[in-house]
């Protein structure tokens, strides 16, 4: 689905990036970047409650084009400018991790294969 669709499902706020330009095929929810680096394989979006620049770095290395901060977490300007420089779309939603994943799942998104 287009990220635009995910924005609707999550009642999310778009913090940066072009939501029409990015397609997501699968999703991964984790607060541990170690696990994201070790397990995520396919082109995914990343849902996380962790807020620091390494979330964006991890997405960059993994070719993840969309990061979604859950539980109303607010990334600071440094994180957003890094995401913009790396062409990564950033959203935030007030939903919990569980509800956010559920909303995307109901919308048709499925978990990817684990690497």
């Amino acid at each position, binding site marked *: 689905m287009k990220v635009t669709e995910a924005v609707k499902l999550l009642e999310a706020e778009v913090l940066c990036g072009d939501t029409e330009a990015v397609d997501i095929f699968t999703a991964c929810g984790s*607060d*541990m*970047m*170690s*696990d994201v*680096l*070790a397990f995520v394989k396919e082109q995914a979006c990343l849902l*996380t409650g*962790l807020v*620091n*620049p*390494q*979330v964006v*770095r*991890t997405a*960059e*290395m*993994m*070719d993840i084009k969309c990061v979604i901060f859950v539980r109303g977490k607010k990334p600071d300007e*440094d994180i957003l400018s890094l995401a913009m420089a*790396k062409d990564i779309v950033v959203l935030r939603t007030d939903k919990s991790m569980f509800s956010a994943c559920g909303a995307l799942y109901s919308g048709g998104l499925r978990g990817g294969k684990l*690497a």
Partner: protein
Amino acid sequence: MGIKLKYEVDGEDFTRAGEASGDIKKTLKKLGFPPETVRNVAIAVYEGEINMVIHANGGEITADLSEDGITVVLADKGPGIPDIGMAMKEGYSTAPDNVRALGFGAGMGLPNIKKYSDGMEIDSVVGEGTTIKLKFLPKQ
């Protein structure tokens, strides 16, 4: 082609960890290496760069890029790894809670580096430091 890149990794600044890996990734992409190779190198080197910052107070990364292979050396003067066999096991980590709160310290980094590289040699002396040499063979 034969390009050498060199980076100092600041051990004090967690927020900047990943700059070297990001730059290597960008360079490989620009040079036209296959996307899978670019991703493999980026993930492995990033894991190594993060390790340097959280376990070894920084270090130096050098990368040698050519069509027939990519060699990356990560060298630090940190505490060293007493038992490399143990450190290579999935789930083994000595990372303290403050590192875990930053999203790292699951003990997955070194095994992941092995998975994404085509050759990995670790040289480590306790009290002197650690050097990890990685080899990647571009696959089309």
